[in-house]
């Protein structure tokens, strides 16, 4: 078996070889390298046609009209364009926005920026399983609320929000509803004919497409308007200027076409692998499945291993590429804000690992992972003074810690 084993599909996915092959057809002199905005020759026409094919493929995955798809550089840009664009366009109506504390930084930081520009933002608490309580959302809505932004699938714990119900609520109040669906495409069914969602962000590289490409769905009926954030040649119906990148767009289109075709079978296969992983780990003492009581995508499993610190656990799992629920590895010593928002103690938030499974994960890899996890937990608990205290029956909450 080749090591290390990649179990970080929620961070990014490898490009599917079928997608890579497609992508390579749009780069060289022999390929379709043209600028889709060139109207005066065949090179431009061909490139434009390829872009439109991809636009349709993306629209088909989510049951939208191709004219509702705007290409961007990725989900971060889509989130920025959706939230800033709608907030600014509708600011005469009101300047209050709502989101949740467990959103991706691309949403939270965008909201922070809007606060600096004079908007007011409510950051909703979530329940202990990661879901937004509809009654609390409704209570937060005001006459001057213009935009609600909530994610479809949480990137750290994989829980699926009830987008259909939230959409109904927003629509009944005339509030624009934006959904970050970066982690949802190819994992859950998305039907924008029935969902009352106005804006939806997509990412290429979370669904076996390349990095650097994404899209924003902008509803036509009822029509949603946005202030453009990037100005120039008026591409993408004026919402996002900049020369389109046919190689990335065609690749994302192909990736989304494959996602639609293979979603059902893939979901079944990944669910079996996820169950196999959890079955192999759940009998270890003091492990907790985060978001365990909510509907979740099978690809993401977030586990807290009590009395073991997350970063040292990642070191012990050196042949397994996973990410820590604690953000220590990114040089900030704060535990994950998502896990803290679920009400986890700092200790448990510091002790969490996200295993994310994908298209190329095998049973053999899962079995090896289970073995390595057991070894690592044994080793680190043997070394952990907290584990000793727990075993001695000491309640860690009663200890007077010498914080530094």
């Amino acid at each position: 078996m080749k090591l290390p084993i990649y179990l970080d599909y929620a961070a990014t996915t490898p490009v599917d070889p079928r997608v890579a092959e497609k992508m390579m057809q749009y780069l060289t002199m022999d390929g379709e390298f043209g600028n889709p905005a060139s109207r005066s020759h065949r090179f431009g026409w061909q490139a434009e046609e390829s872009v439109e094919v991809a636009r349709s493929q993306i629209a088909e995955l989510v049951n939208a009209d191709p004219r509702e798809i705007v290409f961007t550089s990725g989900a971060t840009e889509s989130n920025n364009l959706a939230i800033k664009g709608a907030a600014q366009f509708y600011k005469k109506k009101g300047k209050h926005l709502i989101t949740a504390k467990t959103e991706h930084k691309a949403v939270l930081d965008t909201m922070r920026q809007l606060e600096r520009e004079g908007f007011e933002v409510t950051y909703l608490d979530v329940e202990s399983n990661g879901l937004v309580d509809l009654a609390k959302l409704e209570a937060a809505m005001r006459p001057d609320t213009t935009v609600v932004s909530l994610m479809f699938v949480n990137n750290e714990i994989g829980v699926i929000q009830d987008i259909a119900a939230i959409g109904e609520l927003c629509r009944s109040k005339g509030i624009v509803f934006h959904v970050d669906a970066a982690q949802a495409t190819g994992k859950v069914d998305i039907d924008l004919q029935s969902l009352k969602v106005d804006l939806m962000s997509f990412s290429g590289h979370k669904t076996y497409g390349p990095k650097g490409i994404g899209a924003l769905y902008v509803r036509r009926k009822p029509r949603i308007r946005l202030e453009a954030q990037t100005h120039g040649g008026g591409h993408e119906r004026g919402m996002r200027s900049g020369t389109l990148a046919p190689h990335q767009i065609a690749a994302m289109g192909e990736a989304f076409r494959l996602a639609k075709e293979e979603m059902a079978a893939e979901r079944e296969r990944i669910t079996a692998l996820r169950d196999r992983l959890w079955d192999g780990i759940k009998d270890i003492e003091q492990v907790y499945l985060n978001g365990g009581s909510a509907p979740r995508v099978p690809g993401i499993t977030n586990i807290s291993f009590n009395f073991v610190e997350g970063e040292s656990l990642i070191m012990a799992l050196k042949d397994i590429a996973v990410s820590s629920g604690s953000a220590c590895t990114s040089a900030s010593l704060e535990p994950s804000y998502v896990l803290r928002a679920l009400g986890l103690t700092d200790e448990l938030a510091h002790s969490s690992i996200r295993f994310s499974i994908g298209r190329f994960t095998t049973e053999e890899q899962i079995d090896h992972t289970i073995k390595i996890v057991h070894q690592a937990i044994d080793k680190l608990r043997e070394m952990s003074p907290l584990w000793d205290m727990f075993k001695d029956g000491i309640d860690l909450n009663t200890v007077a810690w010498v914080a530094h």
Partner: protein
Amino acid sequence: MAYSNKVIDHYENPRNVGSFAKDDPSIATGMVGAPACGDVMKLQIKVNEQGIIEDAKFKTYGCGSAIASSSLVTEWVKGKSLDEAQQIKNTDIAHELALPPVKIHCSILAEDAIKAAIADYKQKRGG
């Protein structure tokens, strides 16, 4: 984050992991840090009649750098007098392990653990 080879060595082959019996009068314990901060270090020293640290053991809950820092200090304090051990500085630990700036607190914690163990010993003796 890339770890130095010394951190990886101490992490993979930690020296002197374990515990001494607490009620042994020659044993002193220093426990510093807090679970909420992501690291807790327990350092125990065994001090002979001449005031020399004969042996040391640790248990640490924390990142690789915290484990390496505590492993390193168990090696360093052995054979030292209490006064000599008291002189060990976090900067020496950080330098030896080539800790990056975000991990300096691990070396500070290790220095605190030594001082806490020595204080515990003196208190035991005094009392």
